């Protein structure tokens, strides 16, 4: 009889809850065909609340490593779990008026829950194997979610591109992991780190493995030159999923990147650090100048999220206490900022359902007057992207810049500044379009389905963004606490 590993059920309860929830939801939906939407919302939100509840309950506890050392639950994991689940809840809120929720709501919600579970697994991964399965769980779910917009062919196109490129990325990651395994004999981060620390960090195989792993992770993070999928997928996906990806995927991928680089590969920092520096510079500038020439707002923000990823890289490059805290704070608040922005776009698309729903600059003209709250919220989100006070984006950029300038990475901070300036130029184009008085706004918009849910979602994001900017102390403390687990191997 094989003795299974000890399992700390409380530690993995959030994921278990999500998976069980997804299962129950699908089963229940099979018996209650007519109530797809209500069922999805109630069970989906319920599951997420339970999951978040478990995470919150474990917040601040000492880190737990369970399932044969394959999974690590510390505050960073918890933070990711909470953020991701919160975003998923917002996705559900935003989808209230979506007709696909009526048709295949249970599948949608179940996939969403599974995505969250996969992200939790990634966040807590301690080995490439765990990382890979978690990554694939949420990636594969996301491929489907991206394709979920029944009407739009763009949705399928985006999904297919995402699938092909995403699989390519995963393959490269595994390939790299294989080489690292060959060089060190382990898939575990601590095993790799220990082996490299003893020597062998100069071997070409290690270099090769590091390079391939880096590519795989940078691909998921979506930085240049591995960003090609980002704009297309973000544009084609149902907008709430775009928001979810921009927020959650980025956060999770960065946490995975940080864990691998700092836990498994600290010995080869001389290899990955210059790569990240170059990539960060190229990404910040490239992402922003590409966004500058966009006319579709959804795509513009997709590009801007590429640039933002470059900015977050600075946090990893610096990776002091300040840098990592800034990274976590920046990413966590960025998640809500990005989701908020895409939520506003989603609302706009629903307002314009006849006109193919494209959120072009021209199409958005004067819309801010018809939906004053959403318009103003959009302004705040855009300013948060740009790092203006008093938004959370300001604090995040401030801390990361502070980390950079105090650690002899002034040039990175300056590049960030240049990127922000370019960024402002196009964010302002959106604002100008939203409040373009030269066009008559149609003040009496028809009642849009799900307006309440969408407004609530936007409001919640707005609250996070503003609170994170005006009273950031608490958030910074949380981020600091979570980030303190990033350098555990050192």
């Amino acid at each position, binding site marked *: 009889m094989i003795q299974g590993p000890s399992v700390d059920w409380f530690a993995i309860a959030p994921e278990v809850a999500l998976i069980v929830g997804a299962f129950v939801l699908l089963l229940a939906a099979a018996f209650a065909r007519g109530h797809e939407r209500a069922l999805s919302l109630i069970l989906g939100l319920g599951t997420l609340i339970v999951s978040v509840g478990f995470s919150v309950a474990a917040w601040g506890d000492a880190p737990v490593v369970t399932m044969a050392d394959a999974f690590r639950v510390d505050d960073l994991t918890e933070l990711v779990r909470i953020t991701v689940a919160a975003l998923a809840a917002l996705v559900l809120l935003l989808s209230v008026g979506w007709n696909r929720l009526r048709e295949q709501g249970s599948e949608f919600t179940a996939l969403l829950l599974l995505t969250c579970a996969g992200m939790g697994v990634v966040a807590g991964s301690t080995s490439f*194997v765990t990382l*890979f399965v978690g990554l694939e769980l949420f990636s*594969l779910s996301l491929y489907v979610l991206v394709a979920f917009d029944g009407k739009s062919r763009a949705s399928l196109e985006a*999904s297919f*591109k995402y699938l092909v490129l995403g699989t390519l990325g995963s393959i490269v990651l595994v390939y790299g992991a*294989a080489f690292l*395994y060959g060089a060190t004999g382990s898939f575990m981060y601590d095993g790799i780190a220990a082996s490299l620390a003893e020597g062998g960090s100069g071997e070409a195989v290690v270099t090769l493995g590091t390079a391939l792993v880096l590519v795989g992770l940078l691909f998921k993070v979506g930085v240049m030159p591995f960003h090609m999928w980002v704009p297309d997928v973000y*544009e084609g996906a149902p907008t709430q999923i775009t928001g979810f990806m921009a927020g959650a995927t980025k956060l999770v991928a960065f946490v995975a990147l940080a864990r691998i680089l700092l836990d498994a590969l600290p010995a080869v920092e001389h290899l990955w650090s210059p790569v990240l520096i170059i990539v960060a510079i190229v990404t910040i500038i490239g992402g922003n100048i590409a966004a500058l*020439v966009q006319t579709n707002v959804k795509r513009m923000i997709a590009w801007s999220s590429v640039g933002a990823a470059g900015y977050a890289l600075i946090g990893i490059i610096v990776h002091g206490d300040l840098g990592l805290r800034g990274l976590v704070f920046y990413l966590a608040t960025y998640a809500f900022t990005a989701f908020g922005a895409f939520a506003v776009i989603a609302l706009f698309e629903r307002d314009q359902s006849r006109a193919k729903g494209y959120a072009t600059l021209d199409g958005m003209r004067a819309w801010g007057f018809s939906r004053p709250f959403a318009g103003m919220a959009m302004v705040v989100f855009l300013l948060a992207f740009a790092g203006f006070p008093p938004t959370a984006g300001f604090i995040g950029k401030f801390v990361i810049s502070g980390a950079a300038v105090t650690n002899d990475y002034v040039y990175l901070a300056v590049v960030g500044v240049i990127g922000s300036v370019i960024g402002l130029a196009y964010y302002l184009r959106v604002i100008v379009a939203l409040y373009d008085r030269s066009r008559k706004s149609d003040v009496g918009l028809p009642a849009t389905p799900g307006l309440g849910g969408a407004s609530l979602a936007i409001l919640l994001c707005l609250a996070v963004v503003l609170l994170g900017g005006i009273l950031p102390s608490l958030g910074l403390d949380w981020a600091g606490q979570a980030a303190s687990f990033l350098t555990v191997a050192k």
Partner: protein
Amino acid sequence: MTVGLPLFLAISAILFSIGLVGVLLRRSPLTILLSLEVMLNSVNLTLVAFSREVGGSDGQIFALIVMGIAAAEVVVGLGLVVAMTRREMVLDTDELRTLNG
């Protein structure tokens, strides 16, 4: 055992790049998916080869997991192709370019 590890790794790398060429050059979604399978298999070969060299079963297990996931990925990929077919979309990746810029 007379065949050295580098040979296995080299074959794997060659298969990997052949698969990559397929992804880079073919326009049929199905062929692209098949090429991806070639790449996955090549990675599996590397994993198993290293596993043999290290002497533990970790690499083999990873290879098995990759295989399982490949199955899931194929399901999703083929499902997408089917969905695209049903939407009467042209099954040519060069035509799948409404999203660009």
